[in-house]
């Protein structure tokens, strides 16, 4: 299933592009350049976040939190490692990205936690940032129910990720 999907992307997209009479190589290079710029642009954010999270982990903070929140998180099936990601996600995309990269780095790309974190990242958004920017362009000061609804959606996204991943990737645990 996964191999088929991968092939579909890597071969299917260029073939379809050729069928549509597009210079696929030029299009690829064009997008790839942007990918390179993005990778370089995240370095400062990544260093800032990874240092802060690395310090926090070394300080034993997460072990202390585990004692308090552990039983509760265990009950809903959420590993403590993804808690910082869930907490940071609505505020900063680059910070959340840094945490996601850190989780995958710590546990490896094939770990249950890594898949869960990647799923959470995909199903939630930087709610406060998006709302600030989008309402900012039209000078909206009274945002009414937009923020509560956005946060509810993020929360449901996280809970849904935990449930979906325990079904799909439970074998990795």
């Amino acid at each position: 299933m996964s191999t088929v999907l991968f092939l579909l992307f890597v071969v299917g997209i260029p073939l379809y592009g050729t069928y549509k009479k597009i210079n696929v190589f030029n299009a690829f290079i064009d997008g790839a350049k942007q990918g390179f710029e993005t990778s370089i642009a995240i370095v400062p954010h990544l260093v800032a976040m990874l240092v802060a999270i690395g310090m926090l982990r070394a300080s034993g903070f997460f072990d202390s939190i585990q004692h308090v929140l552990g039983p509760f998180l265990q009950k809903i099936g959420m590993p403590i490692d993804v808690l910082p990601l869930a907490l940071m996600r609505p505020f900063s995309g680059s910070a959340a990205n840094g945490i996601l990269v850190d989780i995958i780095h710590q546990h490896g790309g094939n770990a249950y936690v890594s898949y869960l974190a990647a799923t959470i990242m995909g199903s939630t958004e930087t709610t406060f940032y998006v709302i600030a920017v989008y309402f900012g362009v039209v000078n909206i000061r009274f945002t009414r129910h937009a923020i509560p609804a956005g946060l509810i959606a993020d929360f449901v996204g996280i809970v849904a990720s935990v449930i979906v991943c325990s079904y799909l990737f439970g074998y990795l645990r």
Partner: protein
Amino acid sequence: MLNIIWLLLIGTSVVFGIINHQIDAVLAAVTSSAKAAFELVLGLAGIMVFWLGLMRIAETCGLVRLIAKMLRPVLVRLFPEVPAEHPAMGEMVMNMSANMLGLLNAATPFGLRAMQALETLNPYPGVATNPMCLFLAINTSSIQLIPVTAIAYLAAGGAIHPTDVIASGLLASICSTVAAIVAIKMLVRLRCFNKVYP
């Protein structure tokens, strides 16, 4: 905002480091994490470059327009206050289509133009309208067809089946989008979100 959080993270680690007698480990983590961060980017860059290149081909093929065509009838129903032929509808459709493909840089200009078009329908400037709130709630919970960055990160971490995250991301984001729509439609009935603004 991030300013305070970052400061708090560093402050907390020093305090906990002292309490737990781990302050040497905390200080060692500064150097090792900074070094690891850059090494991670190096491993990541190649995969990121490849996926974004591939997605650009899909984009040039008109993949965004294809999804927009399918989305339009759904959106016309979700936004009864916005006339189907109003420019706001077109911009919203394009924004959501680009968002679903994880093309954030393409999505933002459409989104901002959608907000400006929605503002032309606003009887009370400065106060968010119902369609604006719904649009933002759907935007922030966006259904993910292809979570490009998540795949790239997993692949860089050595995942054997990084594309598996497509299925879980799709299911979870459908849940969050449905939750966003339901939340908006419920919250709009509350009096505190409908008081008369100056």
